[in-house]
């Protein structure tokens, strides 16, 4: 109501004069409708309803108190390792479920009581408080400007040129220290890290399950085996960094099923070794379907055909999986005949 009055009062006084004679006077289509008249709630007019609301709020607060007490009791009384069967969920930890439920009830009742209190008992009359101008008074502004001018004159910046010039020099040079530090980043550049892995000529293939060297007769057609280069230990400091690049899967194909000549050349007895890292964004990719020899990536469904040089047959990957050239050494173990010919994993700017 007060806003209605205000909006009418605030209309520009010259407005009617400017438009005089051009169009017939019409009521403003965007007039501020103001606030609707206040309608009372049941609680505003019926004291018994208000009492009822009061009791509901008090009940919710009491429930919250009881739940908090139950939380403390449960924390003290229930052993941490006890599990209970809860119908739709299954076996869950008794402590977790009780603490969660009681704390949840306590917090919910606290909030619900506050909201019910505000909605039914507190005043719901909308109040308008006009905004005040943010600008300072002319007196304050002129004083601040005068103070600033006086300070500038007293600093002598315009008169003492030596100070001014050396200050400018110092301020110009100070960012250089940051630039020099940035130069240190060049030492952390990847270098050949993205191109080289732990594989090298003569490294024996170690079965990751049994940690024993692999023999060609261990690997059957249709089986899937994971290998790492000899000399790597899971306890090593950088094992995870190294295996993330060197991870290899071994699959035996019938030589007549291998369509790619280079793949056949790089295999040993029909056993082929491929990188396990998808060339799209580097997900581990070993969803090997032994009937189709397809390998599927679980992240974006890139599919590679292991019988045809791990060519991409579906999905967003841009390169075939890098093949590790393997052979059989004099002990009858499988060994690598060099590192991967192509960088493993996703493309990078300088990959070429």
């Amino acid at each position, binding site marked *: 109501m007060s806003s209605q009055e205000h909006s009418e009062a605030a209309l520009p006084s010259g407005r009617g004069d400017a438009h005089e004679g051009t169009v017939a006077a019409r009521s403003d289509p965007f007039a501020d409708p103001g606030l609707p008249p206040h309608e009372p709630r049941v609680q505003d007019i019926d004291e018994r309803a208000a009492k009822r609301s009061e009791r509901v709020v008090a009940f919710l607060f009491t429930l919250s108190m009881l739940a908090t007490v139950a939380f403390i009791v449960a924390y003290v009384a229930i052993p941490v390792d006890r599990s209970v069967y809860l119908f739709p969920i299954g076996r869950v930890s008794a402590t977790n479920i009780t603490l969660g439920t009681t704390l949840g009830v306590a917090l919910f009742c606290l909030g619900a009581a506050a909201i019910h209190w505000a909605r039914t008992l507190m005043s719901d009359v909308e109040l308008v408080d006009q905004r005040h101008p943010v600008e300072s008074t002319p007196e304050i502004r002129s004083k601040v400007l005068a103070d600033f001018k006086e300070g500038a004159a007293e600093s002598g910046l315009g008169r003492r040129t030596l100070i001014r010039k050396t200050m400018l020099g110092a301020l110009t040079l100070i960012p250089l220290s940051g630039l020099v530090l940035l130069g240190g980043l060049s030492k952390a550049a990847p270098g050949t890290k993205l191109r080289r892995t732990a594989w090298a000529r003569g490294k024996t293939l170690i079965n990751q*399950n049994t940690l024993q060297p692999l023999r060609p007769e261990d690997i059957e057609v249709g089986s899937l085996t994971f290998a790492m280069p000899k000399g790597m230990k899971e306890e090593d400091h950088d094992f995870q960094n190294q295996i993330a690049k060197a991870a290899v899967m071994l699959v035996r194909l019938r030589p007549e099923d291998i369509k790619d000549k280079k793949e056949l050349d790089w295999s040993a007895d029909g056993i082929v070794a491929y990188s396990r890292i998808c060339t799209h964004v580097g997900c581990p990719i070993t*969803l090997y379907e032994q009937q189709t020899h397809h390998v599927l990536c679980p992240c974006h469904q890139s599919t590679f055909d292991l019988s045809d040089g791990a060519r991409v047959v579906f999905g967003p990957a841009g390169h075939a999986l890098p093949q590790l050239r393997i052979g059989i050494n004099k002990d009858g173990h499988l060994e690598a005949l060099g590192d991967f010919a192509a960088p493993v994993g996703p493309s990078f700017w300088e990959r070429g």
Partner: protein
Amino acid sequence: MVVLLFALAVTGGLYAALAPADSARADGPAQSLAIEEGRKLYAVGCASCHGTGAQGTSDGPSLVGTGPAAVDFQVATGRMPLQQHGAQAPRKKAVYSRAQIDQLAAYVASLGAGPAVPAPGQYSPEGADVAKGGELFRLNCSQCHNFTGKGGALSDGKFAPNLHGVDPRHIYEAMQTGPQNMPSFPDTVLSPKNKKDIVAYLGTVNSSTSENPGGFGLGGFGPVSEGLFAWIFGLGALIAVAVWVAARTAKAKRS
């Protein structure tokens, strides 16, 4: 399902009680009788797809050298006989009895050597290292079957099934034989002890008795997906409540 499991348990128990006498004279008349019975069952139920001599046809692969473990897995889980051709054979109610499955297995074993049906001691959780099993499962199996064996999708309608409620014996046989598109994990690359550990791990994390301290597992996809679920659905619920709270209060009707 319960009846079936009960029947399997009873017949399995009976078989265990009777089997030593058979295996003591493996090439005796009992064994050749089993092979003969198996051959008859095969001719009726399997030969139409796998060929009269199990040599394989355009409708089904050769069974020579697949071994009794493969027969036990495929037939006892109901995957074979196949109901209809499709992306892959789903698990269903077993058609053959335990004795018939053993006869079929004996027949297929007589065609060529293959993985044998594991003994109960090989897949029972006693003496297994569950933590090691978890490591091996994450290395070898989780890419398809998910971190706790809840299963997942593959290409062209194929899928890695949920391993909840699968008999440990069948999990062991699946690793040995590599049914359908699953690769095999022969004893030479995944030792019998490794397999036992994996079976024990699955019994711990994905069975009706496995504990989940936090409640809803959401498929065991890990903290990222659980966090995403909490953000979308938890925050969504909070926003809905906030909108309701801010709505106009109920008014008394004007008289």
